[in-house]
């Protein structure tokens, strides 16, 4: 029982990061039908910002907002330079463009910075733990869960209470009709990329704090986790993205602790197998997105 509770806390910590990543993927997918495989590059850029600023002796308290800011600006720049030019194109074209952006950003760091993994200092508290009864809880997991909950509350308020949020939700449901209502496509798409960047930046801070290093290909894993979680939740559903992230995080931790030692290293493979099974029985993901209007 204690082990299960411990796993749940660990899984929620991990899943929270995935939820933030998936939410960023889902926000952009909602307005552009773009499954953004360049999403992980926002963390790569943030990682190099961390590498250079921490290397210059700056503290994590200053570096943290810089990572978030760099992710937002990178997200907006990617939209401006690449995705705005293929707006309205087929899903396949958008997908290829996102792969192209992913490879270009990786190649820039590979060519002009370094191909090797560069370490940087992690905050001292990342590995600290505290006990609650028989449970040994990481400070890191606690901070991740609390910040994620606050971020999700803020995002919910933004989406529910502001005209921008309402425009974003309307555009995600039916982009053409939202335009008919006067929603500015530029504003809503750039807003979606900015929000996506913000969420990736927050997730990136925690990802980088844990990793303590950066390389040109560092964005691949967080991108895969974010895209997978968004798919599990039901692509296009913001609520589903959060659920998908938490489910993925919990599944990874629970499987890793439950699988026999001999196949524990295959945890990721087993997770993919489970996801494949999910899509066989429920191809729309966990949450069904309703776009159809009953007449």
């Amino acid at each position: 029982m204690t082990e299960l509770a411990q796993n749940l806390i660990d899984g929620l910590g991990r899943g929270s990061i995935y939820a933030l990543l998936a939410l960023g993927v889902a926000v952009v997918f909602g307005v552009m039908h773009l499954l953004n495989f360049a999403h992980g590059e926002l963390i790569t850029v943030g990682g190099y910002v961390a590498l250079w600023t921490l290397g210059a002796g700056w503290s994590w308290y200053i570096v943290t907002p810089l990572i978030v800011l760099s992710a937002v600006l990178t997200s907006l720049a990617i939209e401006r330079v690449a995705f705005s030019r293929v707006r309205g194109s087929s899903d396949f074209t958008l997908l290829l463009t996102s792969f192209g952006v992913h490879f270009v950003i990786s190649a820039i760091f590979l060519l002009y910075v370094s191909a090797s993994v560069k370490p940087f200092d992690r905050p001292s508290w990342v590995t600290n733990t505290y006990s609650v009864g028989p449970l040994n809880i990481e400070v890191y997991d606690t901070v991740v869960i609390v910040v994620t909950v606050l971020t999700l509350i803020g995002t919910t308020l933004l989406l529910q209470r502001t005209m921008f949020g309402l425009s974003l939700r309307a555009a995600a449901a039916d982009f053409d009709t939202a335009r008919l209502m006067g929603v500015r496509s530029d504003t809503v798409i750039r807003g979606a990329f900015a929000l996506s960047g913000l969420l990736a930046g927050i997730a990136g801070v925690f990802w980088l704090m844990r990793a303590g290093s950066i390389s040109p290909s560092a964005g691949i894993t967080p991108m895969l986790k974010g895209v997978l979680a968004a798919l599990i939740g039901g692509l296009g559903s913001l609520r589903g993205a959060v659920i998908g992230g938490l489910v993925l995080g919990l599944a990874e931790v629970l499987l890793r602790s439950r699988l026999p030692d001999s196949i524990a290293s295959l945890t990721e493979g087993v997770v993919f197998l489970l996801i494949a099974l999910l899509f066989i029985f429920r191809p729309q993901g966990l949450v069904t997105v309703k776009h159809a209007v009953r007449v």
Partner: protein
Amino acid sequence: MLEVEGLTARYGSIAALRGAALSVGSGEVVGLIGPNGAGKTTLLSSIAGLLSPAEGRVTFEGKDITGRSPEQLLRSGVALVPEHRRIFADLTVEENLRIGGVTVPAAKRAELLDEMAERFVVLKEKWDVPAGYLSGGEAQQLAIGRALMSAPRLLMMDEPSLGLAPVLVDLVFELIGTLRDQGRTLLVVEQNAARMLEVSDRAYVLRSGEVVASGTGRELSQRDDLFDTFVGSVVAPDEGLPAAGSPVANGAGGGTA
């Protein structure tokens, strides 16, 4: 107020609209009628900026609005109630209305929301209900209310009675009549020609992408050569038939017997 000259639109190599022309004066209710595939929706979509016309010109209040995007057009004062209503199913009734007022200042939006609550009592009762749960008639009222939230000077409607039960069709035409009485300017695409002619000041008949006739409801309903247009347009035999004795009514009776 609205002038359309020589509008041509194509889907690939097929011309869906061939040099269509029409005008709508301030405070007028103008119908656009014709059989299926006549190009009515294409014409409305071309005016609304949903389609780029290949040729022709659209002016609104003297300004050229040809090829403007839908959001630009709305900001110019032209709103569209799209075919099939296209309400946002996951948003509540109140949110659907609020998004309709995205282009107006917050204070004005609040005023308009109150006005819509007063005008559409049935919607007020379902203010916080997701719009996907509304009936067809309620959804149509919501679609019209949502368009009115932008305080348009010209309101265009695309097939507002399409797919509705007869009693709800009555409701929609009553609503159009009320808007007309309030001095609103309307351009309405409608297959139910007979009902449309009852509520419109003037109408244009479209056939194979061309405007083939125009005039008041009375003038059009007395033209024998438009008989097939009307027969093809009347949705149900027991609703909205033209007045007894008119050529349309006589023709419809004979044609369907």
